[in-house]
């Protein structure tokens, strides 16, 4: 695996991004997109089991937010947060094993995509019922507080998921109990085909924070450094025992809901308009201007990522499906 910064390196020391940090952010965003692109290719080849959901357009939010976490913090990501999985230490191989439902995947083929948990990395994937993970993630934050641990819990939801009752129920409990909990709303303009004007009447989704008595902020979710800085403040605050923060990160879902969705309901020109703010291009321009990135280093990173993803795809493709006789096993814990 090619990395631009050593994983042991303390990220964002003092709340500031160092140059190696910034290169690492760039690397993870590119890796996330390369994985997503590969998943789409596999989908078109009929090799993906089930649907394919990408985080294209969401890379800065996923990567920048998870980058604010320490190893012992808990990540409860969503289906467009592949970048967050990777930042938290997940390997591309495990991502593709999940996607292809193989027996040696983290769920042994019992569930797909990012629906896995990896306790050593403290990653707990989502379920399809949007919003349902919020009270559960709050429960982990409760356990953390009860045991007086130093960890925080970061959880994600979409603009659509913000309409679910458990959004309110979980966040309200976290606020009342002052739990170390950060909720990021990825407002990517559409919940499947439903535009945000048919999803909520508030001006900003972060306005809801005042109703819970917690800080709330709306940010440009295409700026990875802004996402990082905002989340870092929320993480630090949670770690100090000052309770939850609600962050609305505004992005655009650049693909359809899933690979089978042609997104014909997206108004003409909207994708093109947002493409100008592509989170990876934006950041790349800054890094090039700052001479952190050159044509040569960019090529090197690119090649490393391609090799990493190719290896993962090959490894997953060659891995066997779980044996059918396992279907009824392991329903109950001993």
């Amino acid at each position, binding site marked *: 695996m090619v990395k631009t910064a050593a994983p042991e390196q303390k990220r964002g020391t003092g709340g500031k991004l160092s140059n190696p940090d910034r290169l690492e952010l760039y690397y993870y965003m590119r890796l996330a997109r390369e994985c997503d692109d590969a998943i789409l290719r596999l989908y078109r080849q009929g090799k993906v089991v089930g649907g394919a959901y990408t985080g294209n357009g969401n890379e800065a939010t996923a990567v920048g937010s998870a980058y604010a976490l320490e190893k012992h913090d808990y990540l409860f990501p969503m289906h467009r947060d592949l970048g967050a999985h990777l930042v938290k230490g997940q390997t591309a191989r495990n991502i593709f094993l999940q996607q292809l439902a193989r027996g040696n995947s983290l769920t042994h083929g019992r569930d797909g995509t990012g629906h896995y948990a990896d306790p050593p990395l403290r990653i707990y994937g989502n379920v399809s019922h949007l919003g349902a*993970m*919020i*009270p559960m*993630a*709050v*429960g982990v934050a*409760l356990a953390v507080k009860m045991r007086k641990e130093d960890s925080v819990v970061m959880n994600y939801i979409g603009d659509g998921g913000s309409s679910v009752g458990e959004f309110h129920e979980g966040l*309200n*409990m976290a606020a009342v109990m002052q739990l170390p909990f950060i909720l990021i709303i990825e407002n990517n303009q559409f919940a499947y085909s439903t535009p945000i004007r048919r999803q909520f009447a508030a001006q900003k989704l972060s306005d809801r924070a005042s109703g819970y008595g917690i800080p709330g902020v709306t940010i440009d979710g295409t700026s990875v450094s802004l996402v990082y800085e905002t989340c870092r403040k929320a993480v630090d605050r949670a770690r100090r025992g000052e309770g939850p923060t609600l962050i609305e990160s505004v992005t655009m879902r650049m693909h359809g809901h899933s690979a089978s969705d042609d997104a014909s309901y997206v108004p003409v020109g909207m994708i093109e308009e947002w493409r100008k703010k592509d989170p990876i291009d934006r950041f790349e321009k800054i890094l090039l201007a700052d001479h952190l990135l050159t044509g040569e280093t960019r090529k090197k990173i690119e090649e490393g990522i391609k090799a990493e993803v190719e290896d993962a795809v090959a490894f997953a493709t060659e891995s066997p499906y779980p044996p059918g006789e396992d279907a009824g096993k392991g329903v*109950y814990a001993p």
Partner: protein
Amino acid sequence: MPALTYIDAISRGMWEEMERDPSVFLIGEDIGAYGGAFKATKGFQEHFGPERVIDSVLSEAAIIGAATGAAVAGMRPIAEMQFADFITCGFNQIVTNASKIYYRWGIPVPMVVRLPSGGYIHGGPYHSASTEAWFAHVPGLKIVAPSTPSDAKGLIKSAVRDNNPVMFFEFKYLYRRVKGEVPEGDITVPIGKGDVKREGGDVTIITYGSTVHFALEAAEMVSKEDGIETKVVDLRTLLPLDRDLIIDSVRATGRALIVHEDTLTGGVGGEVAALIAEHAFQDLDAPVKRVGALDAPVPFAPTLEAAHLPDTERIVHALRELLQY
């Protein structure tokens, strides 16, 4: 052995488990300073502190979700529903999250949901429901439903120690009506094992919870008046069912009456009847009979409620029909 009421036996079991294991904690509405709607946790907060006896916000989804998350993180929560009826508001957390986590992730979810269940208390449609059958259809959950103080204490202790989500149905009708000897100390009752509450060779009643007591009363009546001897099997656990006890008992008596307080259609009794049909058909001397509540919400007026819920008289009637077949 001291005699305890049914509810005191549950309290005693929880108290002992909290003393034994610091990862056990309670979360629910009004359970702390107030001691719970039925006072099952009276004095707990004073003794164990507000961190381990948590007065939660009014949200069943948040309570069960938080318990699930805490269990995933290694704690052993006991979540209290104020009434079993309100589990509907936390249904998603149980069915979508708690029940499937071990299968999907291999992470144990050691949690208990306490559900004050059932009628005979004039609670009306929203404070009297029997909701256990909904969960009997959910792989990954365990369901217990004790009928005596001794079983209640032993099963709550086993539920706390189990590494799976356990739905603990406790019967409000029995809370202070039933008193019995409860063994002191660390005595548990195994989940998955039924119990013979009365021996008899003519007919088997298979039942659980509140109706165990009506069944025992009915068995005494038909013994005195008709000379019929009824075996009363108390299931105690509804998921997984004690298949061997059900099948062996029916094989021995040749007649089976299934009784529960829950409505008949889609009730746990249907599953019991199916087991009997599959495994004891050749031994039956009469068709399997069932007694349960009417297929209607639990009504409010005492006259309606009495007509709705099963009672001793209906069980006696069914026993006589079975024997006369």
